């Protein structure tokens, strides 16, 4: 199967997914309630007419206004998308680059020093530790320590929000940590698998220095293997983005999507539970477009890096 067909097939599947998500978002959200004694019995009220009306209305609006709709803030979705996209991308891209770079370096470090006891502790030990620390715990810990330090004379810095020029700094760090350790583990595994290959022995026998063998020969052959984990890492980054943006009050795509979904903590009997459907659709599609781009990059890289080009995937 050639590259173009693969890209096309992932586009097709993407369209399927997007349709499913749009159909879920446009579900009617009316509820009914009746009173029994002192209790309201609430239930979900679904009718096909309402569903059809919701879908028709939405697509009518899209058709007439040539836009994805207007959000609850009376803004066209596109302008909000652009606004929040700019904010999130300056966190996402550096976080991705940082986690890949740091992760591979850490993996090589773990591999290089695994023979020593101290190296094993600081190498693989810290990698396990890093994989076990969920991003929210890291955020709580950092924020606690920083606020304690600030109480004791550490210069005041803004840890929350997006008002100061360095406010993207904390989200980048928080977001990149968890994927970095996962990449470090994958790198270590790949290096270990490659270690016993004949070409490594040949290279060593020919007197190539250890460092060059490690960085050039072994690592170079590990990249296709690491690339298999590209999509899971991207997914990790995206689901981390929701949590990190929410906990650092950094208003980006993730934060906006969560507010648009209106997670309810209390409800009145019989009231509908609306969500900001145009915004949810817009931001979900944006997320999915980013994921599709990542998928395409993955497929193209796979194609380019694959030594046996044209093998099945």
């Amino acid at each position: 199967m050639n590259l173009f067909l693969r890209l096309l097939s992932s586009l097709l599947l993407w369209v399927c997914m997007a349709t499913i998500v749009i159909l879920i978002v446009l579900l009617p959200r009316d509820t009914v309630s009746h009173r029994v004694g002192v209790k309201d019995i609430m239930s979900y009220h679904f009718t096909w007419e309402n569903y059809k009306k919701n879908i028709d209305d939405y697509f009518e609006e899209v058709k007439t206004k040539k836009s994805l709709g207007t959000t609850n803030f009376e803004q066209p979705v596109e302008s909000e998308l652009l606004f929040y996209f700019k904010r999130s991308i300056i966190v996402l891209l550096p976080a991705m680059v940082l986690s890949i770079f740091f992760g591979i370096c850490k993996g090589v470090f773990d591999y290089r020093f695994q023979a020593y006891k101290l190296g094993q502790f600081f190498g693989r030990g810290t990698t396990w530790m890093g994989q076990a620390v969920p991003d929210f715990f890291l955020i709580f810990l950092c924020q606690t320590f920083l606020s304690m330090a600030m109480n004791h004379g550490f210069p005041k810095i803004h840890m929350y929000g997006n008002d100061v020029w360095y406010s993207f700094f904390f989200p980048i760090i928080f977001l990149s940590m968890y994927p970095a350790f996962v990449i470090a583990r994958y790198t270590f595994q790949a290096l270990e698998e490659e270690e016993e290959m004949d070409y490594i022995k040949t290279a060593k026998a020919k007197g190539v220095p250890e460092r060059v063998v490690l960085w050039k020969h072994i690592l170079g052959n590990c990249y296709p293997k690491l690339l298999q984990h590209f999509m899971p890492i991207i997914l990790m980054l995206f689901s981390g983005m929701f949590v990190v943006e929410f906990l650092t009050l950094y208003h980006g795509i993730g934060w906006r999507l969560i507010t648009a979904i209106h997670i309810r903590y209390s409800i009145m009997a019989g009231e509908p539970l609306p969500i900001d459907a145009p915004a949810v659709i817009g931001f979900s599609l944006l997320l999915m477009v980013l994921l599709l781009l990542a998928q395409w990059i993955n497929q193209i890289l796979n194609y380019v890096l694959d030594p046996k080009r044209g093998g099945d995937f």
Partner: protein
Amino acid sequence: MQKIPSLWIGIIGCSMLAIFFVFGPYLPHVDKNVTPHSYVVGPESNLDFILPPYTPNKDFLLGSDKHGRDIYSALIMGTRGTLTTVFAISLSTFLLAVPLGIAAAHLTFFRLLLQAWNYLFSRIPVFFYIIIVSTIPFFIFSPHRAIWMVSFLIIFELGKVGDVVYKGVSLIQKTTYYEAGIISGSKPYGLWKRYYWPGCYPQWVAYFVQHLGSMLFLLGQLGIFGIFISQSLAQGEHPSYSIDNTALVWPMFLFDVLIDFDAFPWIPLFSSLFITLSMFSFVCLGEGILDYHLRKQRGLISIRPPRKPFLPRLRKKVTANVKL
């Protein structure tokens, strides 16, 4: 076995969790019912009321939450609820995914099914799907919400796990010793017993343990946004009904974290610490199992020869177990 620290850390951590799970209510200082305290009488006089939440002190080892529930007791008592949920999700995912993955390695139909499933559900964060689905009113009101949520998690995870199983099995199918097994006339049962199982099960067990950790991570993330597996509606002083988490689970203290964190940092901090420590033991155990089997395969861990019988037997000769 002595030389694999991760295995030891994992075993110790998981047995601690098992102790909490089984003997939780009988541990010292644990309040079995996790009773909420609306006030505590202070040291000065009978009129000296102290309202919750309490900072960590002698009575409340890890402090209390806003309802005056002791966090230490709640975390230990919550071990059952949390681990049962996580186990239920992971176990049913694996029970479905292992046959699916194996079938996919043999039959084209199942391979296509697995690929399509994977494309549909594994290309978007599970977290995102769950948030979208869990806010549909039907699942808010449903009395079987917990079952719905768990089944959704299983559906979303199935493709990913099935793919790992499929890859593991097809890796074995490519080896020459597998071909030799077929040529020498092994029946499916024999192939399964002697070829797939020894190669695959360490990987599956390790992946299962790590899957437990990742499910715990996901539940924690959802807890931050106030989305829980089991919720119910309750009317308080207001005419509106509040949506409350009903199960005693670790992530419940992560809810409201933005408000809590400033004033009562111990509430989210200790519960997330608990989640972190158990994730750490799961990750370590998984790594340890893999490491152990890798060493065993390379012959670094000797398989002990069967012990000589105490009384010499008359007929049967003891022969060393030769493993393929």
